[in-house]
């Protein structure tokens, strides 16, 4: 089974064996690492526990990051929800809160679980934990969902390095959003094909996303982008569960992402030499921070 390198192979094998995608993934992992499936699932549980701790810590804090650029936006959302105001229903509110809680915790040097990276750590956990709470499912189902998400990230990473410096933000927050979309479909007991379609539909629509962080820090636009792309995952899942399909097959989408990543200017790949980082305000912030730190 170790030769399963793309989504097409995974889907075919899972359907032939009459198994869910997460089952194939944990078998693969077991084969590759020579560890029992139970041990792999225990390790996933530890990561879920860390995700929940990060959410809980983040919900309680409004401490600013070292740069002072972020850290109190989750508190603003919580206040609005407490006042009974929102455009969203409970599930979407929860996803948004959990996403801000996690990524702000990351910015203030709190403990988080990278998924797939630290800069995109607010997407997969917020979606899985919020949906699992709303569906009132047990921990084993959260594990199934996170393994499903992991499989999506792993297969994409066979072709595309999951690093803003290599392929832009499409390969970090973008891939996280596709991972989360797949996880939601698993939690709603969608089919394997729907899981893959959720990932495909999401990936198609984050293609080309650049990595242009102000002052090189994981804050602007990363913090709010995590929140946006968490909700985005719900769209991918909703469409897939309705039976809407991506006309372009997912493996071809990943190839296209790789091509786009290669064509993307290095100035838009985490080097902060273009985009938001070099807007007048972006440059002003960069200069102020540089002065502040040189004086320390």
């Amino acid at each position, binding site marked *: 089974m170790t030769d399963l390198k793309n989504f097409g192979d995974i889907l075919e094998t899972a359907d032939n064996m009459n198994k869910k995608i997460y089952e194939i*993934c944990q078998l693969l*992992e077991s084969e*590759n*690492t020579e560890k029992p499936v139970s041990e*792999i699932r225990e*390790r*996933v549980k*530890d*990561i879920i526990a*860390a995700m929940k701790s990060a959410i809980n810590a983040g919900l309680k804090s409004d401490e600013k*990051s*070292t*740069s002072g650029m972020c850290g109190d936006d989750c508190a603003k959302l919580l206040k609005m929800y407490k006042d009974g105001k929102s455009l969203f229903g409970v599930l979407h509110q929860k996803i948004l809160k959990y996403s801000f809680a996690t990524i702000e*915790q*990351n*910015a*203030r*040097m*709190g*403990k*988080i*679980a*990278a*998924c*797939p*990276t*630290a*800069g995109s*750590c607010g997407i*997969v956990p917020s979606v899985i934990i919020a949906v699992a709470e709303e569906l009132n499912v047990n921990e084993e189902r959260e594990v199934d969902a*996170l*393994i499903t*998400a*992991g*499989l999506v*990230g*792993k297969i994409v*990473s*066979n072709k595309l*390095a*999951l*690093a803003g*410096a*290599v392929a832009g933000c499409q390969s970090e927050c973008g891939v996280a959003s596709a*991972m989360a979309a797949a996880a939601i479909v698993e939690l709603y007991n969608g089919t394997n094909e729907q899981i893959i379609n959720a990932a495909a539909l999401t990936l198609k629509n984050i293609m080309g996303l650049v990595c242009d962080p102000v*002052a*090189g*820090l*994981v*804050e602007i636009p990363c913090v709010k982008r995590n929140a946006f792309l968490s909700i985005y995952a719900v769209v991918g899942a909703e469409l897939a569960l309705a039976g809407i399909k991506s006309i372009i097959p997912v493996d071809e989408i990943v190839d296209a992402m790789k091509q786009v990543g290669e064509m993307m200017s290095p100035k838009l790949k985490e080097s*902060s030499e273009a985009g938001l980082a070099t807007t007048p305000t972006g440059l002003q912030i960069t200069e102020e*921070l*540089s002065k502040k*730190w040189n004086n*320390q």
Partner: protein
Amino acid sequence: MEKAKTLFDVIGPVMVGPSSSHTAGAVRIGYLAGKIFGEKPDNVTFVLYNSFAKTGRGHGTDKGLLGGVLGYDVDNENIKISYQEAEKLGIGVNFEYREDYTRHPNSVDIILENKNIGKMEISGISVGAGEVAITKINGYKFNINGDYDTLVLIYKDKPGMIYRVTALLQGQNINIASMHCDRKAKGKQASMGICVDGSISEYIINELSKIEEVYLIRNIEVLKK
């Protein structure tokens, strides 16, 4: 030597934020440097280059490197207060920030010293997604990335040294995954970095220390990932 991809490359690690390359990577470089030095330093100086120098303070790269030298893993919440913890331990800490574009964008030289060992200079790079490498120890080239238990040796350059070390490993039925040697000049000092499958026993370390003119022996265990 690339390791096979696992699920846990994508979900995890559990770490202190905000950046896998600039925070978690920094912790791992500091940690490996601390293990290579092998004792509590009295003073440690970090020279950060390029992206590490430019964005390091906003990413807590400084706190991460220092926390690593203090022996912290990437998920230790004391990383945030590593300056205070170092002060409690009486360790002098100094940071310098430089530009040198002949160096890797995320690189650091760590100079550790105490009365017993003297001074050691260890260079490292953070290559992305929390992956790191120690590239130099006291001017000798190494490639230590924490994926394997690694034997680090600095010794007098003379015929037969590699044989003696590898024969000792073979005698203990230890398989060598990769090996890297370097020297500054013929007959002076040389270095060996040997990655092994499994682990290096205390017996091996004892036997190595019996070989004359071996100046440094360290067993750097695989990193928790």
